[in-house]
């Protein structure tokens, strides 16, 4: 039985790669600086639409961390995002006017770019509103982590999505370009996550956090998945299945210990809930280009009309990675 299943997943992986190959025509290179990529560079991949205001901080954050090159697909932005990216010396840009949804939320495009440029590199796949935090990230660059992962023969690194939100209404404090979004959205839910195993793909399925608490009280099964594996020593045989939630081959999804120990893991601080959010939600509701016909955004829009406050008495204020590790949201594993 398991042989049959393994074979099916192999077919599935081939199919994903074929799909990525087909979808490569949907993205057009705008500026290609990938010639400058060195053998052991760390690459970041991202798909975005109208994120101009977030880009300066996003790029700087990951540059400081040690990302050497950014490969970005611009999905038809009209707010100057593309023009801004073109000016950056370490960014290669592709653009697409095609459907985000039918490229499976950009996964097909990035699978193709990773297959073409990511082979043999440590690849980080993040959205512009996601900030990676890993153990010792205040004193050790990302390269220290990837070197350690290499030395430990670990191919993939888990970083759960942690929804950050401001205290007060989300429209209260405007976000300025270049500003650290954590200055505004500095709060999170520390202990309301529910985890189950996906036996088919071997990954964990994590739900909960502020979004489940506020928007999915009545239908928790539809709450967004928070498990993510954004950092992978890429091979052209690999493929993301569903956003960065899971990968094939499925061994890459075993980022957790099953025998009681803790593996090293990080957190993706998800700074979605800034003042830019309402506009975004309204637009996405029109476009219906997001997951499950934007059921997420639908739920937000309904609640957001009532002007909710995500913050509650038991929200935690973000301090640093050590706090997240003490709270049990991430772990140093045996990295010391």
């Amino acid at each position, binding site marked *: 039985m398991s042989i049959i299943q393994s074979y099916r997943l192999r077919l599935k992986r081939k199919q994903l790669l074929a799909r990525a190959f087909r979808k490569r025509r949907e993205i057009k290179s705008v500026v290609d600086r990938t010639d400058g990529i060195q053998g052991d560079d760390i690459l970041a991949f991202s798909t975005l639409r109208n994120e101009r205001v977030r880009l300066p901080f996003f790029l700087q954050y990951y540059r400081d961390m040690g990302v050497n090159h950014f490969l970005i697909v611009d999905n038809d932005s009209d707010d100057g995002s593309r023009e801004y990216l073109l000016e950056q010396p370490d960014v290669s840009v592709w653009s697409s006017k095609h459907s985000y949804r039918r490229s499976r939320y950009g996964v097909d495009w990035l699978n193709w770019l990773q297959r073409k440029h990511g082979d043999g590199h440590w690849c980080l796949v993040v959205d512009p509103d996601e900030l990676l935090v890993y153990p010792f990230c205040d004193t050790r660059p990302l390269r220290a982590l990837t070197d350690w992962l290499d030395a430990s023969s670990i191919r993939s690194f888990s970083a759960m999505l942690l929804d950050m939100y401001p205290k007060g209404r989300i429209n209260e404090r405007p976000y300025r370009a270049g500003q650290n979004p954590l200055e505004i959205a500095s709060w999170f839910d520390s202990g309301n996550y*529910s985890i189950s195993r996906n036996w088919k793909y071997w990954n964990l399925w994590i739900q909960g956090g502020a979004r489940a608490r506020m928007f999915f009280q009545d239908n928790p099964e539809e709450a967004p998945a928070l498990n993510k594996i954004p950092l992978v020593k890429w091979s052209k045989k690999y493929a993301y299945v569903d956003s960065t939630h899971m990968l094939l081959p499925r061994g890459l999804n075993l980022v957790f210990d099953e025998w009681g120990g*803790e593996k090293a893991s990080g957190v993706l601080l998800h700074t979605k809930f800034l003042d830019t959010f309402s506009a975004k939600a309204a637009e996405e509701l029109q476009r219906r280009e997001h997951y499950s016909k934007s059921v997420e955004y639908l739920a937000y829009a309904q609640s957001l009309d009532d002007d909710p406050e995500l913050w*509650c008495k038991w929200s935690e204020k973000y301090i640093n990675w050590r706090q997240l590790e003490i709270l049990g949201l991430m772990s*140093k594993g*045996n990295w010391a």
Partner: protein
Amino acid sequence: MLVHTALDRAEQVARHWSAAGCPVVIHVDAHVPRKTYKAFAKALGNAPTVRFCQRHKCEWGTWGLVAGTLSASEMMLAEFDEVRHVYLSSGSCLPLRPVQELIDYLAARPQTDFIESATTSDVPWTVGGLSDERFTLRFPFSWKRHRYLFDKYVDLQRKVGFKRKIPNGIQPHMGSQWWCLTRQTLSAILEDPERDRYDAFFQKVWIPDESYFQTLARLYSGNIESRSLTLSKFDFQGKPHIFYDDHLQLLRRSDCFVARKIWPRANRLYDGFLRDPEGAIKMTEPNPAKIDRIFAKAVERRTRGRQGLYMQSRFPHEGFEHSITSGRYSVFQGFSDLFEDFEPWLAKATGTQVHGHLYSPERAEFAREQKVVNGALTDSPALRDYNPTAFLTNLIWNTRGERQCFQLGPADETAPIWFIAKDPNAQISVISGAWAVPLFKSNRNFADLRQEAARLQKLEAEQLKVLRSVWAKARLRIWTMAEFIEAPMEPLQSIIDEMGPHSLRRLTEAPKMADLSGFGQFLQNLKNQGMHPYLMGDFPVSPPGLNQPKSPRKPYLVQ
């Protein structure tokens, strides 16, 4: 010095040694491309006391490392007559103390060999599950590249009963590969007439670099100090821990002479330790205890984890949790039905967090009517019932250090009874049949009451079956209601005593029990309607005569 990567750092360290007056012989792995090697050798060409020995192919766990060490040792002893101690180090080693301190330290111990060396039976380092068998089996397959073949071949040899002979009856010893030997001992090993035999033997031993010198030094050395002067910590897979910039202070305070492995890009470490010495020369002994603790904790975290934590990188299979919740908690069934003010009373008596029915169908009844508690856990029943065990483990984890108590009842159908029953951290106290009291007190049609009583009794009977199963590990107490009201204080006292030190004093105040006069008749009425209430035990039907005085309820008092 054995070198295979980060040649720029190796060059820096070699210069540092040589500038302090220590000749250096470098062995560069033969896997390093000729061009890179040439450039490296050229860069060090102007250092007068640095030499390069014959290169061998080094792969982890194979003979190449020993061959390289032997070549380097021969060259060292032949070319530098004044050398008394030879220190084996690697390209990723970093001297932490001024070299002069090491020279003085060794000069004060001219006859001592520093080499960690223990017999195989006495050490727990058994990566791959091999200790003795490292010496008695053959290992033609690479452990790193062909793990499957390696394992299968070991299995096969075990099955067949194959054993190699150990030459001359030497006693195999193992230990850290980073040693510091005296010229006497090292030359004795190199010039041993039997060396060809030993070499031939060790060539087929697994990880000979941890046993060759460790074994042979025992033959010649008069004074072995079985420890390594190199600070080198290993994780649970036998892979060396790596030091980074943020370890600077820790390494400083360790007073070790040399540490490995250093991350090649740890600029602050290299800049900080490869400076000219300042201040007085110290003669302190190395003291790696603090570093030991930190790395031991890392291994513990990786292998055992934090108990009761479920997260993205710790999700144990059932039975491998080490402890399925992170702290002790108490579950009460029937108490809040029987006593009118049980929850406030319990909170006052024990100082713990006392919740209502956490698994009530309407909402999670948190203490003090809160809608959200620690960790932003909400009272939404849908979220709770989506994953009832996660709800409980989250609550217990979020409130570490503060004991939680909550009520349970037969109507709380989504409660993870099996999970709680199997948890040794749970203290469960049940008064069976007490659910009948609220029914008795309620103002409802008897037909409804009868139906509800039948339902609750069935549910509670199922719960009790689970709690009494052979797999239950919780601390469990069950009374029938009749039993309990005979002498309620005693069980209450023992439950509270067990809950912890904050309630060592005796209870001074009892919770108020509901008025049960007429309860016996109520049960009899149920019986008369064909529903048999049995979980509460035997209650006498109080005589219904009109003129007879009502017998006062049996008082229960605090002794």
